[in-house]
């Protein structure tokens, strides 16, 4: 059964790589004296889901946070190497991380809506970036974002209600809607389902598959079953190294590295 899914997805994974959206070349990350990532090079295509898998502490989240420069907020963190989006170095002197983050959205491990209304959660991004010129405009953006996140039908009659009153799965979809509202090109997801039950997880995974049409998606997960279900390409991290990277089918059915094999067959992790 998995094989069929792989074959279907494989085409997308291979063809999409031709147009790499994100390209990392020799990325090293240090937290103080401790090296968290060593010489990571990878290409990530647009209109596809790329999964980062690996055991906890392997550096997959650290690498994800390089892509929107969230690591800048940690004082002891130092990033070296080249990371480009559309061929443009995002660590270049001319790049404003604030502007970068409006192009590279992020969804976090634990749903983290603002303690505001559902509407204000989605409207916050467009508001600070001045994406809406008037109230009707804003309402339209909020509605469209909630629709894309598959949450509209559940909340359209109570947009003024507190976001914290939603269930965990709804909160996470709200966070996805909030990210979409800024109209990013890339959406990073850091273990977006680890705090959710299986039904909510299934909904998010469906949503991820829908979003693939319009965005470059990168998802960190330590569930390799989830990587197999949602991604077209997979990168396996271990102890700060990018061990192996390729189409999801290849990684899961014919891993080249023994470490990948051991992880996938459940020998560790």
């Amino acid at each position, binding site marked *: 059964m998995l094989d069929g899914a792989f074959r279907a997805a494989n085409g997308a994974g291979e063809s999409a790589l031709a147009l790499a959206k994100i390209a990392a070349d020799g990325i090293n990350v240090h937290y103080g004296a401790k090296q968290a990532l060593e010489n990571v090079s990878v290409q990530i295509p647009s209109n596809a889901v790329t999964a980062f898998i690996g055991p906890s502490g392997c550096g997959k989240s650290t690498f994800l946070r390089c892509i*929107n420069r*969230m690591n800048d*907020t940690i*004082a002891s963190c130092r990033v070296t190497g080249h990371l480009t989006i559309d061929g443009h170095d995002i660590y270049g002197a001319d790049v404003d991380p*604030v*502007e*970068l*983050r*409006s192009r590279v*959205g*992020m969804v*976090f491990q*634990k749903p*983290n*809506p*603002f*303690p*505001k*209304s559902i509407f204000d959660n989605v409207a*916050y*991004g467009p508001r*600070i*970036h001045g994406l809406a010129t008037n109230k009707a405009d804003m309402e339209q953006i909020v509605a469209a974002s909630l629709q894309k996140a598959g949450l509209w039908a559940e909340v359209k009659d109570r947009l003024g*209600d*507190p*976001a*914290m*009153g939603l269930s965990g799965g709804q909160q996470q979809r709200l*966070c996805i809607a*909030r*990210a979409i509202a*800024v109209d990013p090109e890339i959406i990073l997801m850091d273990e977006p389902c680890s705090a959710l039950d299986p039904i909510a997880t299934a909904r998010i995974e469906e949503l991820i598959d829908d979003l693939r049409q319009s965005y470059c998606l990168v998802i960190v997960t330590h569930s390799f079953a989830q990587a197999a279900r949602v991604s077209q390409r997979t990168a396996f991290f271990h102890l700060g190294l990018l061990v192996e990277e390729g189409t999801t089918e290849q990684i899961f059915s014919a891993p080249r590295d023994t470490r990948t094999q051991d992880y996938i067959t459940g020998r560790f992790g």
Partner: protein
Amino acid sequence: MAETATEFVHAADRAGVRRTRNARRRKTEQVFRVVGMAATMIGLVALAALLIDLAITGLPRLSYAFLTNFPSRRAAQAGILAAWVGSLLVILVTALIAVPIGVAAGIYLEEYAPRNRWTDAIEINVSNLAGVPSIIYGLLALGLFVYGLGTGRSIFTAGLTLALLILPVIIVATREAIRAVPASLREAALGLGATDWQVTRDHVLPAAMPGVLTGVIIGISRALGETAPLITIGALTFIAFLPTPPLQAQFPFVSLQWLSDPFTVLPIQAFNWVSRPGNDFASNAAAASIVLLVITLGLNGVAIWLRARLRKNLKW
């Protein structure tokens, strides 16, 4: 066989030991319960006795005339008009200076300042400043403001002095409230492309506001009861006039003259009356203290109400 018997005896021993130990532990528990209750009661009873005594002495003196009269040599005609107006104006100046500066300093130290030896030193010293005796602030203000800057024995000087006094309290409370804001909230906003200032203004500050207000309440309450530093900078004890009204009938209609007017405050008025001979002035002092208490509780009430409202706005 023999071995089994020994073990049995040992087991019985253990049960006995456990019984006696348990009895002793229960007794310790009882003793602590009584000691704890006594400690609580001592505090409560002493406070209640104080309040009741204050009420018995002071309440009969409270009247509309007491609130609207200036002090007088005759106890029965003396009032606290100048004192309560002075207290409110001084506190207004204190709050207007201390709250913005304290909150801004707290935000800077917590959100912007780098973590190094300098900021560590500042942190420790800000906490220490909160414990400095208030008379020291009075001496500092006398030298710096009254003589140095020439601000005079005015309401402005008093507000400035008390603001210095409560700044550490507000800074520490602000920092603690900001530190309690979950990192996930900051990350959510940063991830959307908010600037540091937008994160602070739109998310961190609103979430920290209830905690900041608690610090403001504590600071203002402390400032309202202060006597020593204000006497040091030359607050008067006998004032038979009010400061210039801030609103004027003539152009430009607003006057800041009141800031440089001389003043007195309620605790100084009460202190002055207490030190006079005779029961009549003593009951005046008690009545003034009641008014001070009511003002303090009233301001706290406003702040608590505000805090509750802010919490409701946050839709946690």
